[in-house]
């Protein structure tokens, strides 16, 4: 583990130890809180240093690691919805235009990439115009989909 990571880990361990220690110390008044906090921090740091395998599997380690991943995921969901191409027909068209020119540029380096048009279906183009639907129309679409699923099973989506 790098020294930087180790330092962050030690800080986290000390903070938790301090919290636990001060919580117990609080039962004995303000002085007890300070003494308990200091003792708890030292104890937690010792565990981290001399029994790292215990820390690696600890609740604290899991909490810190998972909290970081959860934060990254929340930001990613926000960003994906913010950087949407489905806001309007012009956003959608602009993205299609951008993809078309990028594929053209890339295929000059690698012929197998091909053009965007070669990847489009022959008889279908998605247009967002007139696709906004009120609640009644939305329910009709759901019903239509529901009938399909009852006859054919679930719609399978991969990502």
């Amino acid at each position, binding site marked *: 583990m790098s020294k930087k990571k180790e330092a962050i880990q030690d800080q986290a361990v000390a903070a938790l130890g301090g919290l636990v220690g001060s919580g117990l110390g609080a039962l004995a008044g303000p002085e007890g809180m300070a003494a308990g906090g200091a003792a708890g921090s030292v104890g937690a740091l010792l565990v981290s240093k001399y029994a790292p395998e215990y820390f690696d599997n600890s609740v604290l380690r899991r909490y810190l690691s998972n909290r970081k991943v959860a934060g990254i995921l929340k930001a990613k969901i*926000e960003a994906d919805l913010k950087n949407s191409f489905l806001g309007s027909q012009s956003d959608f068209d602009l993205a299609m235009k951008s993809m078309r020119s990028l594929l053209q540029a890339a295929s000059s380096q690698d012929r197998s990439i091909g053009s965007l048009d070669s990847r489009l279906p022959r008889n279908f183009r998605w247009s967002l115009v007139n*696709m906004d639907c009120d609640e009644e129309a939305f329910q009709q679409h*759901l019903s239509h989909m529901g009938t399909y699923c009852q006859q054919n099973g679930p719609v*399978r989506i991969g990502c």
Partner: protein
Amino acid sequence: MFRDLNERLSNSSGIQFTVYCDEINGRAFFDSLRSSCDLDFAIGPLEALVLSDGGQKLPLRLIGPLCGERQHIYVSTKKRAGVRSGVWVFDRSSAKFQYHVGLAIPRSAQEQSFDDARIVPDLVESIPPGDMVIAWDPLSSVLKGRKDFAVIHQSDYTVHFVLLGHLRVFRKNQFPLQAFLAVLLTEWRRRQHRNEGLFKILRRDHRFMTAFALGAGQRWIPEV
């Protein structure tokens, strides 16, 4: 979003969606479809699709773009021990695509291609000073917060996440495509204002969280 719809509507309207989301990145996803592709729809980066499926053998056709994901080139700013200018590129990915297009790639840069996404966390730690790495989110946002990496000026690239349909969904009377797209569009636009439920659904999926964390160079520890 589809999982959420499934949970909310399967009892009342009979609508059912099964979502498969187990791969660490877009390239691994499209590679996994080579042996068999029984999906009705696929969502992934166009850039990885065109490099993974050069011969266009997958039975998938493009319906349209959904959203963009940011990708940047980062240079390692660790203390210099000599001048290097290798650029680390994950093969057949959107990073490779950006390299092909040449966007913000220095002329002197030497491509250092690698083929296993699982080495990314170690690579980021051991990358030589002056070398670059092309990273997309979520790794990109992690590197952005580190002091030992700097973003190369004007290297932002938007990766295009697209919706693809299996050939059969375009056949007449085989699938209610307009209804599916209307439901998708309506839900998508609603979610732009109210998305708190999406995180909770994803968090319950241990395989997804593990793959997502790995993609960010992090670790998801199962909650027992």
